[in-house]
C-alpha cells in the first residue's frame, strides 16, 4: 500500500507535464488564430509544423551527422582516426556481422513465410478470430518479457534430473538422452534466439497479409477459378502476384526491426556464446566499454544496412502515389 502511495506523485508529474504541454499549445493556437489574411498560411505552417521539425532535427538529423562524424574519432572522441573504427569492425567483429546477416535473412523470411501460410489457411476458415488473436498476442509482449518466457522454454537441467525447460523435456520424450544446454549450444543458439523474434513477428505478418488477401477482388479469383486455377496454381499465379507489394512491405518492415534487434540478445545471452549482433555490440561499446568511436561506427553500420530497405520503401510509396 505504501508503495502505491509513493507511486501516485509520479503519475501526478506525468499529468502535470501533459497539462503544461497542452496549455502551451493552446496559447500558441490562440495567438496563431489572430493572424488573418496573407500571414495566416505562414503562421499556421510555423505553429503546426515547427515543433515537429525542430524535434526531428534535434533528435534525428543532427545526431545522425554527429554519429557519422564521431565514427571517425577515437574512443574518447578526441582525435581523428580516419576509418580505424571501421577497420576494427571488419577485422575483429566478423562473427558479429555474420550473426547479424543471418538474423536479417532468416528471421524475416521465416516470419513472413509462416505468416503467409497462416493467412492463407485462415482466409478459408470460420471462427478465425480466436486463432488470430492468440497468434498475434506476442506482438504486445516486450522483447524482455519474451526473453523470460523463452528462457524458461530453453532452461537447461542435468539430463539425469527432472527437466524444467519444455524444449529439453520434449526432446527427451522423443528419445534424445542428453539434450544440449541450448543457450550455450553454438552456433545453433543463434537460431533459438531467432525463434523468439519469429514468435513475435508472425502475428504481424499474418494480420497484414490476411488483410491484403481479403482485398483481392472477388471477380479476379472467380475468373481464375473458372479458368481452372485451383490450389497451388491459384496461389502462385493469382494470390501471390496480387499481394506482392504487401509481401515486400512486410518483409522489409521485419528486416528493419531485426537489424535493430537488441533486447532479445541482451536479455538472453548479453551477446555471449557467439550470439552477439551489431545493435547490442553498439550498446556494449558505447555504454559498457566507453569506446564511443567503436559505438558510433557500429551505429553507422546499422544505418547503412537500413538505408537500402527504406529507399526501396520510398520508391514503392512514390509509385503508389503516382498511380493514385
Amino acid at each position, binding site marked *: 500500500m505504501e*508503495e502505491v502511495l*509513493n*507511486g501516485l506523485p*509520479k503519475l501526478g*508529474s*506525468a499529468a502535470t507535464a*501533459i497539462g503544461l*504541454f497542452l496549455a502551451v499549445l493552446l496559447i500558441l493556437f490562440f495567438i496563431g*488564430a489572430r493572424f488573418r489574411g496573407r500571414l495566416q*498560411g505562414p503562421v499556421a*505552417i510555423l505553429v*503546426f509544423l515547427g*515543433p515537429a*521539425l525542430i*524535434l526531428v532535427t534535434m533528435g534525428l538529423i*543532427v*545526431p*545522425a551527422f*554527429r*554519429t557519422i562524424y564521431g565514427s571517425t574519432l577515437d574512443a574518447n572522441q578526441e582525435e581523428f582516426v580516419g576509418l580505424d573504427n571501421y577497420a576494427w569492425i571488419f577485422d575483429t567483429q566478423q562473427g558479429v556481422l555474420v550473426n547479424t546477416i543471418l538474423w536479417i535473412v532468416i528471421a524475416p523470411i521465416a516470419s513472413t513465410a509462416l505468416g503467409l501460410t497462416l493467412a492463407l489457411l*485462415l*482466409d*478459408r*476458415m*470460420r471462427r478465425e*478470430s480466436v486463432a488470430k*488473436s*492468440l*497468434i498475434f*498476442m*506476442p*506482438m*504486445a*509482449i*516486450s522483447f*524482455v*518479457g519474451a526473453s*523470460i518466457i523463452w528462457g524458461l522454454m530453453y*532452461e537447461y537441467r542435468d539430463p539425469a534430473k*527432472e527437466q*524444467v525447460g*519444455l524444449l529439453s523435456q520434449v526432446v527427451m520424450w522423443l528419445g534424445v538422452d542428453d539434450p544440449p544446454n541450448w543457450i550455450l549450444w553454438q552456433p545453433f543458439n543463434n537460431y533459438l534466439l531467432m525463434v523468439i523474434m519469429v*514468435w513475435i513477428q508472425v*502475428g504481424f505478418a499474418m494480420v497484414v497479409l490476411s*488483410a491484403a*488477401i*481479403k*482485398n*483481392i477482388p*472477388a471477380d479476379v479469383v472467380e475468373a481464375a477459378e473458372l479458368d481452372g486455377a485451383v490450389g497451388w496454381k491459384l496461389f502462385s499465379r493469382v494470390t501471390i502476384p496480387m499481394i506482392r507489394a504487401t509481401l515486400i512491405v512486410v518483409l522489409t518492415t521485419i528486416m*528493419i526491426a531485426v*537489424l*535493430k534487434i537488441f*533486447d532479445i540478445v*541482451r*536479455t538472453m545471452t548479453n551477446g555471449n556464446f557467439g550470439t552477439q549482433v551489431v545493435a547490442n555490440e*553498439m550498446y556494449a561499446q558505447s555504454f559498457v566499454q566507453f569506446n564511443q568511436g567503436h559505438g558510433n561506427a557500429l*551505429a553507422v553500420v546499422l*544505418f547503412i544496412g*537500413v538505408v537500402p530497405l527504406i529507399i526501396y520503401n520510398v520508391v514503392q510509396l512514390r509509385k503508389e502515389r503516382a498511380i493514385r
Partner: protein
Amino acid sequence: MSVEAPEFVILPEPEEGKGSVTEAARRKLSSPWAVLVVVIITVLWTIPTVGLLITSFRPAADAQNTGWWTFFRNPAVTFSNYAEVITGGSNAAIGITPYFFNSFAIAIPAAIFPLVLASMAAYAIAWVPFKGSTLIFFGIFALQVVPLQMALLPLLQMFNLGWSIGDIPIFPDLNKPGSNQSLLAGTYIPLWIAHTMFALPLAIFLLHNFMAQLPRDLMEAARVDGAGHFLIFRKIVLPLSVPAIASFAIFQFLWVWNDLLVAITFAGGTPNVAPVTSYLANLKGTYGAQLHLTTAGAFIAIIVPLIVFFSLQRFFVRGLLAGSVKG
C-alpha cells in the same frame, strides 16, 4: 495491488466481405487438414506464455526443480512469488511497484506528446498548401532510416551538457553548478523527449495518410465560411481523425511500455525513473535462476500490454494495416 488473469476479450475482426471468397466457398475449401495445422500452430504459439503464467504461481522449490507441465499432476499454487516481486523481499531486493508506476508515467505522456505534435504536422503537410510540402513529407518518411542507435550518444550528450552552435545555445547546459549532474538526471523529461523525437516520423507518416483522405469539400466549405486553419484543425480534422489517432496512441503506448533501449540509456536503472522492462532485464541478469521470481515479474510487466491489446485489438490492427497496406 492484486494480480488477476488478463481479460481475454476477443473482438471479432471486422468482416470485410467484399472481395473475399464467399461464405459457401469458404466452408467448402476449409479442409480438416488446414484446421489441424492452424490449431497446432495456435497451441504452439500459446504454450510458452501459458508456461510462464503457470510457473509464476508455483512455489519456489517446485518451479526450480520440476517442469511447469507437472503442475497438472501436482497443483500447488502460491501468491508469494508475486508478493515478493511486488514489494521486494529476501531474494529480490527491490520490488517492481515503483518501476510499474514509472512505466505509466513514461508511456502516457510519451504517447500523447508525439501524437499531438504529429497530428499538427500531418495537418500542415496535408491541408496547408505551401511549396516544399511534398519534400518535407518524404523527408520525414525517410527519417525512419535513422536507427535509434545513431541518436543515442548525441542526445545523451545534449541532455547532459547542452548543445550550442558556436555561441548560440540550442539546448541549454543544465548542469547544476559545480557538479557533474544534469538537472534532467533522475527525471522523466529526457525519456519523454527522446520517445517523442523517435516516434514523430512514423506518426506523421501514418496520420498524414489518414488526414489526406478526408473529403476536400469539407475543408473548402469551412474555408468559405471564414474558418482559419486553427479552427479547421480543432473542429473538423481532429474529430474526424479519432480512429487513426486512437490506433497510433495504442501502438505508441505499447512501444514505449515495451522499450528497453531508450529506457536504459536515458533513465539508468534506478527505481526513481526506470520502467518495468529495465527492472525485468535486471531481474533476469541478477536472479535468472530464480524462475519463480522472473516469471512473476514478467507477468506483471506484460499484463498491461496484454489488457490493452485484447481490449483494443481492433484499433491496434487498424493502425498496423494503415502503416503497411496502401488504401
